[in-house]
């Protein structure tokens, strides 16, 4: 019997959704849980999954069409099944096709190259006098007294205002009185060799001498792991579906913990090696992009990362992020996999020293144990600020990351 595919309410406030792209074509077999289309909600681009096994018989609406929640968009059934009765029911649907349905990729306003330097002034040292950081007078006094940088502190008061408990929390992690979690970072003055490297490289290539390292990762096991997580029965309907990007963010965060050399800021006269991982996540927004930060990402569960990533990305698109939410990152991740990009290079987001550009997951013929096999592969490219990260340092980080994504179980312990 044929099953309707309807536009689902993918966010609590969603009233309509734009079908960005069909991930399954007419005639393709689908299984329950398969991603059949990508849908742009009021907050984010999300996945529409199959609720039945069978064959995708019909795309009722074309890619690029905006339809209200619960409207029929497609049909799953047995090959050759007559679905005309189902389709007739949708004839009075209120689908409003947007003029010429734009191809999905055109919806990306952020070409890779523009993952550039959109916010050098927003670097978390913006607590200069007259800076626009929202903080209570008491928080300012405590921060001044303890030499804390308000720009590096996340506010928990109304509209992200920094309040007493935020600076007191930060004080515990400040370098001087190393609290239980240890200091947040370690400043290392530049050695002569680093000074020379920095000077020569900057002369050669520009203010941020960047080099690139690419690695191809076998994603079969991560794929399986994610399928298991997504199919999990105890997932409450409010929980976000774990995406590949969430898993990649988690793996990057954990890898950075093992490689603090890559989790660092160039500070002109010194390098600040962070003991905390604050992941900047590039989000394309209308006419630009922004990098909301997942704080302490290495200490968060996959579920927390997923929830926070959705939430931040959603508010980024609504332009409702507070400065504290898009500053203070220690490393960036930019993912264009959903746009079928195989590989790209991203531009470093100073003062961070590294950014990882993530391509799509594509089945490819590869040699496994001496025989050709079809495997899901993903290419990642690490852009490194050579003043901070050397080739071998970056390569070691990538090797750890690759290991985690190829054996996601290693992230657990």
């Amino acid at each position, binding site marked *: 019997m044929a099953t309707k595919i309807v536009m689902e309410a993918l966010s*609590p406030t969603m009233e309509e959704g734009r079908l960005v792209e069909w991930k399954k074509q007419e005639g393709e077999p689908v299984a329950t849980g398969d991603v059949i289309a990508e849908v742009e909600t009021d907050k984010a681009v999300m996945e529409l999954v199959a609720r039945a096994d069978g064959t995708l018989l019909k795309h009722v609406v074309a890619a690029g069409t905006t339809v209200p929640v619960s409207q029929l968009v497609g049909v799953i059934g047995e090959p050759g099944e007559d679905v005309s009765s189902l389709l007739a029911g949708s004839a009075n649907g209120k689908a409003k096709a947007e003029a010429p349905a734009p191809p999905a990729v055109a919806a990306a306003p952020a070409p890779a190259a523009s993952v550039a330097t959109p916010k050098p002034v927003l670097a978390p040292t913006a607590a200069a006098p007259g800076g626009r950081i929202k903080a*209570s*007078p*008491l928080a300012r*006094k405590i921060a001044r*007294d303890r030499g804390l940088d308000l720009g590096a502190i996340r506010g928990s*008061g*109304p509209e992200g205002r920094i309040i*007493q408990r935020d600076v007191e929390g930060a004080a515990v992690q400040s370098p001087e009185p190393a609290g239980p979690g240890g200091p947040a970072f370690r400043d290392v003055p530049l050695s002569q060799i680093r000074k020379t490297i920095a000077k020569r490289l900057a002369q050669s290539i520009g203010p941020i001498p960047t080099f690139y390292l690419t690695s191809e990762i076998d994603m079969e096991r991560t794929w399986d792991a994610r399928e298991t997580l997504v199919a999990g029965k105890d997932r409450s309907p409010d929980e976000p579906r774990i995406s590949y990007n969430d898993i990649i963010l988690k793996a990057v965060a954990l890898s950075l913990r093992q490689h603090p050399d890559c989790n660092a800021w160039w500070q002109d006269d010194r390098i600040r090696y962070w003991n905390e991982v604050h992941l900047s996540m590039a989000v394309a927004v209308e006419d630009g992009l922004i990098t909301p930060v997942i704080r302490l990402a290495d200490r968060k569960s996959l579920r927390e990362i997923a929830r926070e990533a959705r939430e931040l990305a959603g508010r980024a698109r609504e332009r409702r992020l507070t400065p504290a939410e898009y500053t203070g990152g220690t490393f960036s991740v930019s993912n264009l996999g959903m746009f079928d990009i195989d590989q790209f290079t991203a531009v470093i987001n100073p003062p961070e020293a590294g950014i990882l550009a993530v391509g799509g997951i594509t089945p490819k013929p590869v040699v496994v144990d001496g025989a050709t096999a079809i495997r899901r592969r993903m290419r990642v490219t690490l852009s490194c600020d050579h003043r901070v990260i050397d080739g071998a340092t970056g390569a070691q980080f990538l090797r750890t990351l690759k290991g985690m994504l190829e054996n996601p179980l290693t992230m657990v312990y």
Partner: protein
Amino acid sequence: MASQFDVIVLGGGPAGYVCAIRCAQLGLKAAVVEKDKLGGVCVNIGCIPTKALLHSALIANIVTHDAKDLGIETGTVSLDYGTAMRRSRKVSEQNSKGVEFLMKKHKVTVVRGTGVLQPGKRVKVGNEVHTAAKAVVIATGSRVKGLPQVGLELNGTTVISSDEALFLEKAPASIAIVGAGAVGCEFADIFNAFGSKVTLIEALPRIVPLEDAEASDALTKSYRKRKIDVLAGATVKKATVKKSGVTLEVESGGEKRTVEAEKVLMAAGRAVNTEEMGFKEAGVQLTDRGFVKVTPATLETTAPGVYCIGDVAGPPMLAHKGSREGVYVAEIIAGHKPMPIKYDNIPSVTYCHPEVASIGLTEEQCKEQKLEYQVGRFPFSANGRARTAGDTEGFVKIIRGKKYGEILGAIIVGGHASEIIHELTVARENEYTVEEVDLAVHAHPTLSEAIAEAALDSMGRVIHT
């Protein structure tokens, strides 16, 4: 007819009805179950009618004692508690009607009757069972209680509570008030103004015992000047209740005293309403102290989907605390993430004259917590506006943290203290320090200048003393 709602609120007091309105604003279909008048104790037999009577008391005192000096010749003044009482009833009725109007305006259904909680977010009222799709909110409030252990069982005639005092046709010739918290002190003020001989008995060492000791001293002084007999640190050992009055044997500091009074007003504490409403059967547990047990961050009870707000959810038992919890819980139910309630920044007010209003820690609490602090004080006797009103009792006291100047606590004793305390409430809510309070220019002449001066004094820079 039984119906389906998103949220059912048990109790139409200041916690419950505010919760229902906020629910409605957030698009939820809300109902309030109320067995009596809307507005609860606060509107009908609490905050509102007592303030109406206190207004009468204040005017009575001014007319009796100060009129001549103010250039007003009054002739013989006669006072009639009954008339004042009937006026206070009108005010309460207006307010209760106002709540009814608000329920209509926000399309909140009012279900009349006693609600009994059933398992599974259902509420039985009479024979009908109403279902809540999202949540049930318990806001059943509290009531006065007597002291049966010393023979002071409430009898409604000679041993009364505020419930009866608010309906007396005339002020008693003499009245002993047991308990000198807000309720006791307010009624002492009211009955004293209407000519009763008042004895105010408090078991703890000072009246308004939860406030800063300096406030207790100032109020005691003011009361004694008005011939109110203030017995602090005094316990009622025995009570003999007769038809015409009550004899109390009171022990204070080893000394025994006999207090004869036409009536005894019990103002020593309140009991929460948790009985016979199906709480236990629905899985709602209580704390050791008898309040409903809640998770502090969500105010959810031990029964999933059942929340609890107001007096019955725990102290402080204040209308404004309950209302805020009502808003907070409504937002949680609607899936929002409200800013947490700062329970350490809820103002506390006693509306006697002079009024006592406080926020944050008392000096005693600062000492107990071993905080380093500096005290700033300013007396209303040095404040121009207070002098123009001939109302110079009291002071402003601000306790500032020594290192950062944060306002650890503040207390105001004086006319209109209840109104001017909020400058410091806003300051503390936003973590302003005493410097920001001083930097804000205060209009002259106002009582609020005393706050700015106390802030300055805490920094050693007071101008007008």
